């Protein structure tokens, strides 16, 4: 069963993957094994695909570097739940298909808790407790079924949730 890894406020992209272990430094094949290398050295070796990260405020602040979320993607993180995300990092997570939920669970979940996370409905279960996270919009669910926004785009040449026929432009009419 997936487990919880709990972090504090303001985890930055350097905490997620120190610049020193960027793919071109550490190697494309192994850079993900340095995720959280300084703040949770045991993480990469002990985490299992599907594990869920709980963070504090402003998760992912710092640089726009894409290899930090890429490392998490390669490790097959099941999702990240934090009260707020840094804007560029949030975009990167969704583009890569890492489910990101805005909710504050730092007070109720503990490191090592065994949980299940239903990405489609946003329901997180721990034993008898269930937590309803803000469910992802249809746009995102569609993307996640394909893996990511990027994967969706590469396959269909358009964004998820986009009508194939966009209809008439709305210019001139009142919304």
């Amino acid at each position, binding site marked *: 069963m997936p487990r919880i890894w709990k972090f504090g406020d303001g985890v930055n992209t350097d905490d997620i993957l120190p610049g020193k272990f960027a793919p071109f430094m550490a190697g494309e094949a192994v850079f993900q094994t340095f995720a959280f290398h300084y703040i949770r050295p045991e993480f990469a070796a002990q985490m299992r695909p599907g594990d869920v990260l709980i963070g504090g405020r402003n998760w992912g602040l710092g640089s*726009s570097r*894409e290899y930090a979320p890429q490392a998490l993607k390669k490790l097959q993180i099941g999702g990240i739940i934090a009260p*707020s995300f840094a*804007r*560029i990092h*949030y*975009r*990167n997570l*969704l*583009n890569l298909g890492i489910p990101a939920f805005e909710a504050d669970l730092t007070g109720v979940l503990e490191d090592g808790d065994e949980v299940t996370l239903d990405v489609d409905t946003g329901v997180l279960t721990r034993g008898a407790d269930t937590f309803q996270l803000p469910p992802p*919009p249809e*746009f*995102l669910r569609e993307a996640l079924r394909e893996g990511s*926004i*990027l994967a969706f*785009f*590469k396959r269909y*040449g*358009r*964004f*998820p*949730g*986009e*009508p194939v026929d*966009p*209809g008439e*432009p*709305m*210019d*001139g*009419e*009142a*919304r």
Partner: protein
Amino acid sequence: MAEKILSRRGHRAVYAGDLAVVDVDQVMVVDSIAQSFIERMERDLAAVPKYPERVSIVIDHVAPASTVSVAQAQKEARAYAAATGVRLFDVGRGICHQVLMEERLAQPGWIVLGSDSHSTTYGAVAAFGTGMGATDIALAAASGKTWLRVPESVKVTFSGDLQPGVTAKDAALEMIRVLGADGATYQSIEIHAGDRFTRGERMTLANLCVEAGAKAGLVVPGGEILTGYGYDVPDWVYPDPGADYRQEVEIDLTTLRPRMSAPSEVDNVHDVSALRGLKVDQVFIGTCTNGRIEDLHAAAEVLRGRRVDPSTRLLVIPASSQVMEQALEDGTLLTLQRAGAALGTPGCGPCMGRHQGVLAPGEVCVSTSNRNFIGRMGDKDARVYLASPAVAAATAVMGRIALPGDVEAWVGA
């Protein structure tokens, strides 16, 4: 306003918090990320721009090239533009945001994505302008669309009238002080100013919105935007009377005094009079915040018939070739040159510390730009103070932080 533009461009009603897929009217790529952009397009997406006429590459951040590798990257950007038919503005045309506005590539109700964080500038004409990274920009160029989370709005209302010597830059710095550096994170700032402010002044206001963390900074159309440039301002773009705001603030311009942002956060804003007298090594007038013709005029007014103090140096870089031409024609550049200014090629100059006029350790600079972070304009031990062109010019004359009024007093003495 943000909801309305995103609904319109997404062809369905969306509200704060929704994810929306929207049409993009213009995608702007600056020189520094052109290489990553091309790589994403060709290698990762194997795509060509869907609407080449909606993509512009601007060579402005390091222009002309300062090293061989920069020159090589710019060469590749030119070749890419020639091969794909996207627009390219080359060395000397000017700063991306200024150029797009001049070329009318940002219009009321449009969505404009830029690979530069100050893309909020397009809000001056009520275009939803926002900055994104190379992958997002490439996706937008390949598809003509992007996805956005619809932001909540913060309403900023300006009332009263600016007093002589106080400018839109001071109003913008005051707004950042009131909101704080993260006061509008994820949100869109909506600026209500009636008919006040020219297009250029509105650009200064919208430009600085990103320094409060905002995704966009939309100025409600008024004044010159309705009368001066022949923009087609659609009725639907105006905010609804009963619109919901996350936060509302009001700033009275009548009592506003010249403002200055001290190192090393933009929201560290003080009265210029509180910092007056501090010795300054370099004064820089330019950038997408304050390198326009009205800014050069304000500087020239203070510098006319005076000299830059020998203990300091003044660097002036017009924001674009059009600004430069106008300033040449009306004699502004001659005034500045005679006062002892060093003039640079239209572009970003030393604003982000990579070109023309960076600072040595320990140096102090008064700049009309928008960021004073540690190391932003050169060495990490240099200190940058942000101010209006009038205050910057007065500082250049005095060699110390000064108000325009100090210059008068000094000449009279």
